[in-house]
Structures are given as structure tokens and as C-alpha cells.
């Protein structure tokens, strides 16, 4: 029982982690909590659905959805946030909430407001079968696919951030925007790159959740977004490894809470974890304290 909860919680946690990195990266470069990020995740699921219904195989559908949501993420920044770059932070935050509502409603117009099932015919039949079984614990093939995909994406993301020229520019920008500009770094281009990267990750999370729970609906991004944001805070907002760790920790805490307290408390556990972190360790697991040598 406990082990099974851990397996399920880890699955959920990896998905939260994929969403959380998008929050934390954007926060890192422009200090904005992009409340529309949950909607990017939702669009990832629906765009994959649309690609599949056009007859594309699953991997290609996911890839196209990733590229499309990456483009939507960039557009979101250019249209909604860039004009407010020098404005008070509250203005951008409210705009983010507005964009979140806008995208939700746009999805309702396109795909309707009722929940849609994930197209099962697009999944290989063995996905629901157990891949591993130890006495009482079962891991399905779908869970294995989620593990492998999420971990591969996170390793890839870390390589991009730590090893590439643009990734290093992203970190430089997050640390000192004026200095980054003085190095000749095109600040807006790097911010766009950050949005694209985070949105692509969020899209994959959306596909995996809709596949795992066999449902998608236009408001699904709200709760997932809030939880992933909690995961980002838990790990230390601005820290990418922190967001990954926070996501997994939150997923496991939530599943254990649902299993041992009561299933309706699932979301409550997530919020309780966030509140406790804010009270006792506001900078998160891997966050920096604010004081730093100049």
C-alpha cells in the first residue's frame, strides 16, 4: 500500500515538476509569476488531441503540440508581458491572471467546456498493462513512459541551461539584467527562449496528465498550475533543480495525504505544504536567501 502510493506519487510529482520548471524559469528571468502557465499546460493536452484526431501518431502529435505551445508561450510574453516590462510588477501579475482566463475561454470556444477523454486508440494497448510487479506494487507501462519522458526532458533541460551559450545567457540575465544587456545579450530574445522552453515542458506535462487520468478539460490548468507553483515555491522559486525536487516532493505528499487521510484532502495537503514552507523556509529547499555579496 505505502509503496504503491510512492509509485503513484512519484508519477504525479514528475508531472508537477515539468510544470514547475516553467514557472521558476520565467520567474528567474523577469520576476513574474506567469499565472497563464497552467493554461499552456492545458493547451498542450488539447493540441495533442487535435493532432491525433487529424490522424497523426502520438509521438508526432506531442512534438507538434510542444512546438505550438512553445510558440504560444512566446506570443504570450510578446503580446501581454513585454509592454509591461518597466511597469510596476503588479500590472504584469494582473495581466497574467487575465491571460489565464482568456486562454481558458478560448479553449472552451474551440473544444467545448465538457471534459474530453484522451483518445485511447492513439495509445499502444500495452500501456495500461503492468510493466513491473513486486508483491503488492504495480508499475504500469504508462507510468514507465511518464518516468522516462519526464526524466529525459529534465536532464535535457539541465544540459541546455548549464552547458549552452543561450542557457548561460539565461542564467546571466536572471542574475543581472543590465550587465547581461551590456554583454550584448539580446534580453528579449533570451526571455522568449525561456518562455518557449518552459511552455514546451508544460505542454508535455499536460499530455501526460490527460493520458494518465484519461480526461482533459479547459479549466484543468488552474489547479495543476497552482500546485506546480506551490512546487516551485517549495523548491525555491527561481531554482530549476529546486522546482524538480519540489514537484516530486509535492506529488508524493499529496498522494500520501489522499491515501492515508482522505482522498478529498488531496488538494488541501498541497496547499498545507505550501503554507508550511512559506512560514518556515520561505526561500524553499534550494532557494537563495536574499542577502548576497554584490
Amino acid at each position, binding site marked *: 500500500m505505502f509503496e504503491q502510493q510512492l509509485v503513484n506519487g512519484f508519477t504525479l510529482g514528475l508531472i508537477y515538476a515539468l510544470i514547475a520548471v516553467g514557472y521558476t524559469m520565467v520567474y528567474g528571468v523577469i520576476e513574474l509569476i506567469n499565472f497563464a502557465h497552467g493554461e499552456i499546460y492545458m493547451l498542450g493536452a488539447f493540441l495533442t488531441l487535435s493532432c491525433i484526431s487529424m490522424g497523426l501518431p502520438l509521438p508526432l502529435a506531442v512534438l507538434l503540440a510542444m512546438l505550438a505551445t512553445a510558440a504560444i508561450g512566446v506570443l504570450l510574453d510578446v503580446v501581454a508581458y513585454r509592454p509591461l516590462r518597466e511597469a510596476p510588477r503588479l500590472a504584469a501579475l494582473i495581466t497574467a491572471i487575465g491571460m489565464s482566463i482568456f486562454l481558458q475561454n478560448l479553449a472552451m470556444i474551440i473544444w467545448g467546456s465538457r471534459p474530453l477523454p484522451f483518445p485511447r486508440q492513439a495509445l499502444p494497448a500495452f500501456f495500461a498493462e503492468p510493466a513491473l510487479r513486486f508483491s503488492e506494487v504495480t508499475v504500469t507501462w504508462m507510468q514507465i513512459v511518464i518516468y522516462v519522458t519526464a526524466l529525459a526532458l529534465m536532464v535535457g533541460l539541465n544540459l541546455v541551461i548549464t552547458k549552452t551559450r543561450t542557457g548561460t545567457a539565461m542564467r546571466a540575465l536572471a*542574475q543581472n539584467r543590465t550587465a547581461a544587456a551590456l554583454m550584448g545579450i539580446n534580453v528579449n530574445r533570451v526571455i522568449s527562449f525561456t518562455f518557449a522552453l518552459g511552455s514546451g515542458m508544460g505542454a508535455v506535462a499536460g499530455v501526460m496528465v490527460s493520458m494518465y487520468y484519461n480526461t482533459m478539460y479547459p479549466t484543468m490548468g488552474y489547479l495543476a498550475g497552482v500546485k506546480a507553483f506551490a512546487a516551485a515555491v517549495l523548491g525555491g522559486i527561481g531554482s530549476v533543480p529546486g522546482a524538480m525536487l519540489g514537484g516530486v516532493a509535492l506529488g508524493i505528499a499529496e498522494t500520501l495525504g489522499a491515501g492515508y487521510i482522505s482522498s478529498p484532502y488531496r488538494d488541501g495537503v498541497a496547499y498545507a505544504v505550501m503554507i508550511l514552507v512559506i512560514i518556515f523556509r520561505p526561500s524553499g529547499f534550494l532557494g537563495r536567501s536574499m542577502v548576497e555579496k554584490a
Partner: protein
Amino acid sequence: MLEVRDIHTFYGNIQALRGLSLRIEAGEIVTLIGANGAGKTTTLMSISGVTPPKQGSITFLGQEVSRLSTERIVSLGITQVPEGRMIFPRLTVKENLLMGGYLRRDKAGVRADEERVYELFPVLRERRAQMGGTLSGGEQQMLAIGRALLARPKLLLLDEPSLGLAPLVVENIFEIIQQINADGVTVLLVEQNAQMALQIAHRGYVLETGRLTLEGPAKDLLNDPKVRSAYLGLD
């Protein structure tokens, strides 16, 4: 090489520069001295395109640059070492240096220039895997200068390189500035430490509340009674 003509720069409604003009010839070290708030940093930020002037012109190697992006200005050969150093505290020393060469595509050239920076500042070679934020103030200043050199500038803008550093370190930094200049880099040096700046500069300008009030060969300014009393604390 650089000609700034009658520029007016604003921060919101506050006018920081009121018709400033200056000229720098290739190979010179020119210093801009003045009190706090006179507009020295604004002048450099205007040249770098971070706070572009509302009026006036800036030409570099015959090209108008006052409307260009910072990225373009850096790629044309003007690099700034900003006030307070502004190194990237959570990038390694090596990564900091590589960010200086961000716009360059010649990998071999960047490698060679990185090596050259380690020769100028041997301590940076020892510390290249360390985070920039763990360096001492003087080392951070060396890193900031090294980082700017990685852009292979034709004109180097230095904003208060002596700020907050021990006298011996300042002397070392100023020697390096002369050495960089001897290697063919033109330098515009902004300083509150007027004494040191005028000793290594060829020419100097004195800035007061957004306007130039004096200019001339550095030696003349060192002996100018007004400069001596107002900026050197002598006589």
C-alpha cells in the same frame, strides 16, 4: 573615434545630461571626472545605448550609434565595465568571461582572449571554476574588466574601477588599464578618484550636473587650481 555631440538624456522627467559633447581619438585614455550625481554613469549608459539620449548624436568610427541597440553597439566594438562591477555572482569565473564574448563566433579567438585575460590577471585562472560572487572586491573588478576584454572592444568604457578597493589593488588595476591601452584599446575612464585617473589619462573632461565645465590635457587639469581644490582636495 568616438564623437558625442550635444546629448540630452533623461530618466523619466529628470534630465541627467544637458547638452554634453566629448571626443575620443583612437589610442587615447580619456577620463571623465566629476562629483557624485554629475552624470558620469549616465554618459556611459548613453554611449552604450542602455539609456539612449533623447537628443543629440553619438558617432563611433563615423557611424551614428545613438539609436542602436546595446547589442549592436557592443558588436561594433564599444564595451562597458559598469559601476559596481556587476559580475554574475552565480556563474563561474570562466562562464562570466565567456558571457563577455557572447556575440563572438570565432571560438579560437575567444579561447585565445580568455588565455590573455588569465595572463593579465593570474588570480582569475586559479579561480576560474569558482562562482563570481565568491571573489573579493578587487578580484571581481579584475573579472569585470576581463569579461569586457573578451568582447575584444575597440573602445573600453570603465565606470569607477577604483570604487571600494584598497589602494594597492587600485594601483594594480590602473597599471592593467594602461597595459590594455598599450595593447591598442582606447579607454574612456570615469572616476571619482581624479588624482589616479588624471595620472594615467592623456586628456580629461570635468563634468558638473550634466554639463562639461573644463577639458584639456590631463597634465594641465592636474595643475588647474579649480580642479585641484574641487576634485583633488589640494591647495
